[in-house]
């Protein structure tokens, strides 16, 4: 799974950080750091972060086509 955060949209609300603190971190209250390729087993928490973002800046994409084809 691959995460893309549209940093132009991101307003630093930090809601993603509450939902999945291991994968999103806001430094200095404004700059978002995140794990661009979290393991698949973390999907539920990443989706929670995606849902919580008030400006929908986070998108989740399959890591590559091979992974998408996995059963």
């Amino acid at each position, binding site marked *: 799974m691959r995460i893309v955060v549209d940093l132009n949209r991101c307003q630093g*609300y930090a*809601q993603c950080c509450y939902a999945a*603190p291991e994968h999103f971190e806001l430094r200095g209250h404004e700059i978002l750091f995140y794990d661009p390729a979290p393991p698949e087993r973390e999907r539920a928490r990443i989706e929670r972060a995606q*849902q919580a973002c*008030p400006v*929908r800046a986070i998108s989740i994409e399959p890591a590559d086509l091979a992974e998408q084809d996995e059963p």
Partner: protein
Amino acid sequence: MRSETLFSEVMDPKNRANPYPLYELFRQTPVAKQSDGSFVVSTHENIRTLLFDPRLSSEDLPPSRRPHTGNPIKDWILNPIKNRVVTAHRPFIFRDPPDHDTLRKFVMDEFTIQRVNDAHGRVESLVDEFIERCRGRSEVCLVEDLSYPLPVAVICDLLGVPEEDEPHFQRWATQLATALEPDARHDETGRHAIVAAFDEISAYMRKLIREKRRRPADDMLSRLAKPGNKRTPGMGDIDLIATGILLLVAGHETTVNLITNAMLTLLRNPDELEKLKADPERAPRLIEEVLRYEPPVHFRTRKATSPIDIDRVTIPAGAPVILLFAAANRDPARFANPDRFDPDRADNQHFGFGGGLHYCVGAPLARIEAEIALVTLCRRLREPRLMSDPPPYRSGASLRGPASLGIHINGIS
């Protein structure tokens, strides 16, 4: 229906159970001037624009005025001073930058991810305990049995407010919440009641903070009350009291609506109830969709500090501006099939927690409470059915939600 009087229809209690057709009418005049001079904004794009517009002020409450007592010292000296002090130290939800930002930061620094997520276990055991109390009954009232007591217990825990004081501040909280309703500004008796509740809760909070300073505990009020030093000055006493009250009250009258609206919506959409039961991981999407579809806060009022041109309308300086979040949440220009409850919608950018500078501080906490409450209710209530639809509503049009939600059950698992 003329758009200039449409907002009085929104305020009319007879439309409380279903205000959405009125909101649809509003969206046809996206920036609608009302006969009292206020402007109602109801489309997603316009609200998003205005939430980031520094010309809109949140310092909209009418200045506080204490009633005439007949005692000249009170009427001419003490109360005018009190009025001025209170107006100058409003809680930060009613303040603009830079003061808003300074005060909000004190709270955000305390509202850490760790502390919010630590509430998880406590919420779970509270929910189980409240549901357990309903054992042996065939009817429950969701509001009384769970939606109201849960957020109170959680915020008391976090702040360090003794829960046994709850009966007092329930009344104060309810009274203070009416300050958000636009009709409060025209109603002198109502405003006096708000000031009276405010004086009582302030006295209570002042005492509590003194106690926290004397015996600091591991809670948010103790930490906020810690005296500052030269390098990092603490919050002034009056701001501290206002902030404590805001935190105590803000979660009360809102989270109760989120939990109740969520359960009401599930009972009206039994297939979604079954889906949640089968897959508790659906809870976050489901709660987000409730925040869009039946939000606990329908609108907030701001004031234009200078003229604002928007959507071919000029809002003059000084005009109250009502941001009708609940209408924007069902804007067909933003959401496909907006009147359909669909937790699986991909792009759900709702205004359930507002947006911009004042975006809800308590959102992560409210989400945890609502998710756990809903998952547990679905798991433990056997064959829940609504006793009446629509349920009776509380009077608020802004903080809108059922006064009670009777549910028939066939026992508890």
